[in-house]
């Protein structure tokens, strides 16, 4: 489409392609098809050249194999109305998804309520049962998060499955960590055991941070389209793996630090101040995210790391 673009893959292909499309009105549709055919012809000609053909032979064979492309353009592409487009992009929920989301949400919600009421001695709740409720609530809500995200946000551009699963896992870790931590406190179990739910929660927060920081729409069709005209978009972590690694290490340090300080505060001052380090840690991490994602220009002014 762009006349100044260098055309690799042998000039013969492009000459034959021009001949093939000679006399066809240069409508957007025809140009689009021509570019598509060009890409595929170059790929086929390259394959033939690798098999030992000369570039000219390869181009001729590739074009001969193509068949009649002209007749494709005879039928005009149908205009799509706004209603068609809206219908094509509508998110259709599957019945099974709706049913399991409702059931799991109810189970998780009831577990949370039972856990809460049990802690107030509204009814007797055995320690084992409390842990089971804590687990059901955490895993259930994590499942709902992952499952919902896995459902498409738009029909054509769903969230990748792995990312949706990781979001679900992060949610399950955080919520299960909180509910089991709550159970440990309420049921008079040695506070040292808090380390397990704390590690789970921190891991979940770390995972959330990672997912949030790497969330981008760079693979969406319209971003790819945009990227061909405007360069230099993208995610810093994508372009600079070292920055992503640094971010991971800093995040880990912040949360381990917050955890240790909070344990120390717990044993010295009790619960009054022990939660403060987590708030500080969260603020620190958000500052870190902004600095690392958007601080790129500052880096460029200084020496390039």
């Amino acid at each position, binding site marked *: 489409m762009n006349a100044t673009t260098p055309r690799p893959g042998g000039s013969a292909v492009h000459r034959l392609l021009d001949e093939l499309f000679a006399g066809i009105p240069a409508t957007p549709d025809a140009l689009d098809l021509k570019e598509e*055919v060009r890409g*595929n012809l170059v790929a086929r000609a*390259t394959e033939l050249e690798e098999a030992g053909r000369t570039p000219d032979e390869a181009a001729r064979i590739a074009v001969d194999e193509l068949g009649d492309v002209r007749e*494709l353009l005879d039928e005009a592409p149908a205009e799509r109305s706004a209603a068609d487009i809206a219908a094509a992009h509508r998110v259709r929920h599957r019945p099974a998804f709706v049913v399991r989301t409702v059931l799991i949400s109810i189970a998780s919600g009831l577990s949370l309520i039972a856990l809460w009421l049990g802690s107030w001695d509204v009814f007797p709740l055995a320690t084992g049962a409390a842990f089971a409720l804590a687990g059901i609530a955490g895993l259930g809500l994590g499942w709902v998060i992952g499952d919902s995200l896995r459902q498409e946000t738009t029909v*054509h551009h769903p969230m990748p499955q792995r990312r949706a699963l990781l979001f679900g896992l992060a949610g399950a870790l955080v919520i299960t960590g909180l509910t089991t931590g709550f159970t440990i406190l309420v049921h008079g179990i040695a506070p040292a055991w808090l380390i397990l739910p704390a590690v789970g929660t921190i891991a979940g927060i770390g995972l959330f941070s990672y997912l949030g920081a790497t969330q981008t729409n760079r693979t969406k069709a319209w971003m790819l389209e945009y990227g*061909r005209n405007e360069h230099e978009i993208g995610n810093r972590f994508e372009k600079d793996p070292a920055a992503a690694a640094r971010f991971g290490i800093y995040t880990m340090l912040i949360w381990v630090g917050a955890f240790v300080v909070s344990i120390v505060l717990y044993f010295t001052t009790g619960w009054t101040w022990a939660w403060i380090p987590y708030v500080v840690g969260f603020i620190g991490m958000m500052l870190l995210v902004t600095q690392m994602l958007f601080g790129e220009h500052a880096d460029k002014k200084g020496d390039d790391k």
Partner: protein
Amino acid sequence: MVQDSDAFAADLLRGHTDTIVLGVLRRHESYGFEIYKTIRDATGGAYEIKEATLYATYRRLEKDGLVESFWGDETQGGRRKYYRITDAGRAVYRRNVAAWSATRDIIDSLLDGSAVN
């Protein structure tokens, strides 16, 4: 010279081009030549679906909303137009495969026995 049996098989294959393309795209998004090559390799190179036929298929599938296309960002070689299957495409694919299995069973049972001679 193409033998009659070959022409028969090629016809059968051509009749299912849409479903075959959907089947290729069901595994991963792909571009014209790669789809062509996948089909060619699967048939052992014996039968070809003409590329022009495939372009017609892509246009039809896209018009029906069964696939969607987007341009790749290759800097080397020609730019590629990629196709990706939609939910509607997957549904049609499953329906066609089910219809094919049913038809194949019927034809198998009708032709069984006589074919052995």
